[in-house]
């Protein structure tokens, strides 16, 4: 009897403690996976932020001011899905060397929270004629002239009609060199790749025949 009781006691104790141990391992397991997940996501966020600040990022482009170049779509939900997705590279921000015709993204001078996409028309030192008026301006140092592709468009959502610093309403805008990046775009329907695929097929068929 006396030897049985301690055994049964010990058995039940063992069962209880093993279940406790399993429970604790489960909790520890949960915490450790959560901690692992947190570590990995923080590391990923740091790396992603660094790459998007210094090297390049991928953004959708909304609005219709760059119409033939980027497809026109509006910024609210259903139109957003049709937006062209572009690759923006930031290597040019080291030396600020741009050429005429580059498509650039920049922070708006009238609202630093908004980013616009336009084409660079004139660099510092160039003379430019303000469209729809006979005024000629010389671009001062550190500034540039940007315009959208689709011409005069004064709808609010596109921000083509922002006033220049001298408060002239115009369809184009004088931009400042702030947060400029050059845009290299890949259209979402992979048009360049389609063209190349067709060329490759032609080449193959020419070789076979």
């Amino acid at each position: 009897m006396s030897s049985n009781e301690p055994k049964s006691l010990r058995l039940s104790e063992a069962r209880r403690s093993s279940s406790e141990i399993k429970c604790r391992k489960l909790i520890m397991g949960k915490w450790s996976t959560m901690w692992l997940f947190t570590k990995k996501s923080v590391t990923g966020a740091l790396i992603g932020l660094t790459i998007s600040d210094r090297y390049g990022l991928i953004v959708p482009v909304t609005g219709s001011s760059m119409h033939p170049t980027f497809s026109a779509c509006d910024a609210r939900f259903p139109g957003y899905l049709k937006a062209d997705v572009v690759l923006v590279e930031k290597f040019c921000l080291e030396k600020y060397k741009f050429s005429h015709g580059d498509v650039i993204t920049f922070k708006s001078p009238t609202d630093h929270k908004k980013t616009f996409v336009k084409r660079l028309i004139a660099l510092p030192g160039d003379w430019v004629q303000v469209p729809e008026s006979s005024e000629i301006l010389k671009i001062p140092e550190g500034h540039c002239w940007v315009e959208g592709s689709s011409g005069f468009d004064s709808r609010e959502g596109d921000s083509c009609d922002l006033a220049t610093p001298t408060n002239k309403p115009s369809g184009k805008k004088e931009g400042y060199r702030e947060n400029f990046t050059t845009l290299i775009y890949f259209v979402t329907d992979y048009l360049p790749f389609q063209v190349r695929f067709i060329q490759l097929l032609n080449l193959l068929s020419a070789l076979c025949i």
Partner: protein
Amino acid sequence: MSTVGSRIASFLGSAAARFGKVPWREIREDAFDRAVLVLKAACFVHVVNTYVVGIAFVRGPSMLPTINLTGDVVAVERVSPRRGSLVVGDVVILLSPENPRKTVAKRVLGLEGDAVTFVVDPARGSASQTVVVPEGHVWVQGDNIYSSRDSRQFGPVPYGLIQGRAFCKVWPPEAVGLIGQKL
């Protein structure tokens, strides 16, 4: 001759054997882990410098007497410009509107919508002018108005050019202290 040759051959053979025994895989894995750690640390430093607080070396005569002519190291916080909570009197670090590769330190004297009165040319008398700061811009001026290129020359500056607010001097040790809101 043959003993020399055989000794060289045995030396090369043992060297080759020792080369084969070096734990190359462990060394490679260790080097890779270390490189990844260095990369992660660099990303962390970049994120802290760009989004939280950074350091800038400011020199020049345009912010005398607040900042020394030969240069002071200041701590620059990046949170307030991003949140839009700058006030008049802050010393800010901004990209120069005349040359985006140059950063300058000036004091904010007017936010958007404010009417700023300034002396046009202090060396030539006290004729003053009043300007309303347009939307999305700030008016910056150096503390030393006699020798500073600021908004009196290049006009109001877009808010997006501001990189940070200098709130404290950290070097040289005799100049350590918070940078005040008034001149």
